[in-house]
């Protein structure tokens, strides 16, 4: 193992890290705001890649149908709720609120998909399809369970994960896809060759993290999300509704997932079920941060990314095993060093 290999592995590791950091942030955000261990986060990564790949081929992606299906289910649930409350007067407005946007997006995609627009536009269309799925997943699967214990929410999350993976197979088939690189440029820095794509990954990740830091630190809605994570009851007393916060958190998580997918599409071949492993590695990073601390989670993600790339060189069959084994000492250290708080103190 010489310096050039070390540099290549480090570069790979950093590229992975950039993605895992984003996913870890999304997982911490969702857990903080809704107490959901968000297993299906990875599916948004693979949906991002697969949707973009369909658009590349000029085909309407299956995720559009999923979007319409989820919106229909959400509309049905809302109708039942309003009916049982005897508030049918509000039904047309509620249905319009749920159905109009997905329908408009589906229509737009229907016309734009065959046009084979430039890559940048296709990425935008991909986000338009995948991001609204986040809030819809929340509305259909989690909002009715808002007061359930963490374990029930976890079980629901696992169910959603299986559902989305199965639907991914149905809509996209079993073949893996790769999307074109944003940049084919190569830069050499001494012994190291840096690809334009990995620079894109670093830059986008940094911008996204900067954007999130600004959002949470400076904007009213960002502060409101943190407030819900710190103290749900206090947040309700100042008028922040948990379901509004949950919807927002899921929208952000879906954006982060889809963005990560778009970024790694050119680097790795992605299958309908690839998202799970990717999401799980982000989860390991989040666990290092105790599902609460963003900086520690970033450190954890860095550890995961580097460990993964170096172990794929030494012991490539075991790279996932090595990465996930890392959770055990982290959990040991956490459970020994941290004070245990009752939930909902």
């Amino acid at each position, binding site marked *: 193992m010489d310096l050039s290999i070390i540099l290549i592995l480090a570069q790979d590791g950093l590229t992975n890290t950039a993605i895992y950091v984003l996913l870890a942030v999304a997982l911490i955000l969702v857990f903080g705001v809704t107490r959901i261990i968000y297993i299906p986060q990875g599916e948004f990564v693979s949906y991002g890649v697969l949707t973009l790949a369909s658009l590349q081929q000029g085909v309407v992606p299956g995720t559009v149908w999923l979007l319409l299906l989820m919106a229909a289910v959400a509309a049905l649930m809302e109708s039942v709720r309003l009916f049982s*409350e005897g508030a049918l007067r509000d039904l047309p407005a509620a249905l319009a609120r749920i159905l109009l946007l997905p329908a408009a997006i589906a229509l737009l995609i229907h016309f734009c998909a065959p046009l084979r627009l430039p890559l940048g536009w296709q990425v935008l269309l991909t986000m338009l399809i995948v991001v609204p799925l986040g809030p819809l997943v929340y509305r259909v699967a989690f909002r009715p369970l808002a007061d359930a214990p963490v374990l029930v929410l976890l079980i629901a999350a696992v169910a959603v994960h299986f559902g989305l993976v199965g639907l991914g197979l149905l809509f996209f088939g079993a073949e893996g896809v790769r999307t074109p690189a944003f940049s084919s440029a190569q830069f050499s820095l001494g012994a190291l060759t840096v690809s334009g794509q990995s620079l894109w990954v670093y830059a986008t990740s940094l911008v996204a993290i900067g954007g999130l830091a600004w959002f949470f630190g400076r904007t009213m809605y960002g502060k409101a999300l943190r407030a819900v994570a*710190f103290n749900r009851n*206090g947040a309700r*007393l100042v008028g922040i509704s948990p379901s509004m916060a949950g919807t927002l958190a899921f929208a952000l998580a879906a954006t982060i997932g889809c963005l990560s997918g778009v970024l790694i599409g050119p680097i790795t071949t992605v299958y309908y079920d690839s998202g799970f492993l990717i999401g799980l590695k982000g989860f390991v990073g989040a666990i290092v941060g105790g599902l609460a601390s963003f900086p520690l989670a970033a450190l954890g993600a860095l550890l995961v990314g580097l460990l993964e790339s170096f172990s794929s060189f030494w012991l490539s069959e075991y790279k996932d095993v090595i990465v996930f084994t890392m959770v055990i000492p982290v959990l040991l250290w956490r459970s020994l060093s941290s004070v245990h708080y009752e939930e909902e103190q």
Partner: protein
Amino acid sequence: MAERLLTVRDLSVRYGKVEAVYGVSLSVERGSIVSVIGPNGAGKSTLLNALMGVLPSRGSVEFCGQDLAKIEVEQRVARGLCLVPETRQLFAQMSVADNLELGAFIRYRRGDKAIRQSLENVYQLFPRLKERHGQLAGSLSGGERQMLALGRALMSQPTLLMLDEPSLGLAPLIVKEILKNISELRSTGVSILLIEQNARAALQISDYGYVLENGAVAMEGASRELAGNPRVIESYLGFGG
């Protein structure tokens, strides 16, 4: 007679099989301070939590002429009802300034532009909060926390402010200060429903009072009359003072 702001009729709250509050009726007029006094465990906090919608209850609660039965906590806040609970429920890991700003969350959603002005007003009312605006809420002393909780509540520009034991655990001097602040609030057009262990102080600053015992209203009347009532004196005011 002034306009009725809050009308509660026959309110009952149960924890499982235990009825903590039953058959309570009370009302608050616009621009007045109403106090609810009573011993520990009489159901005072339960009553406020039920009015806020934090606890489910039976009976009717009418606020500004509208029935609140199916209205969620957040929507009650948006309608001008605000509770400062006994536990304060501050955002301990966030700064004093952020806590205050979040108090105006519903106004921000409405597109209210005067939030900065309200912040200045709160800082004027509690100069200590201005000094500590960058400090985490969790690092404040008890009195400062109480000021912050009051300040945060005021940021929502409530029509009716419900205060649960604002003097709890505070040094007598600070209690005096806080109660002075509360009676000053009336001049800004806020009506107040106040719960206090410190019955003498509560009756001094309020217009009307209710005595809650074992979950039901035992006595009510103008605060000055209650303060002179022999039974109230014996049970809640003690001798002297």
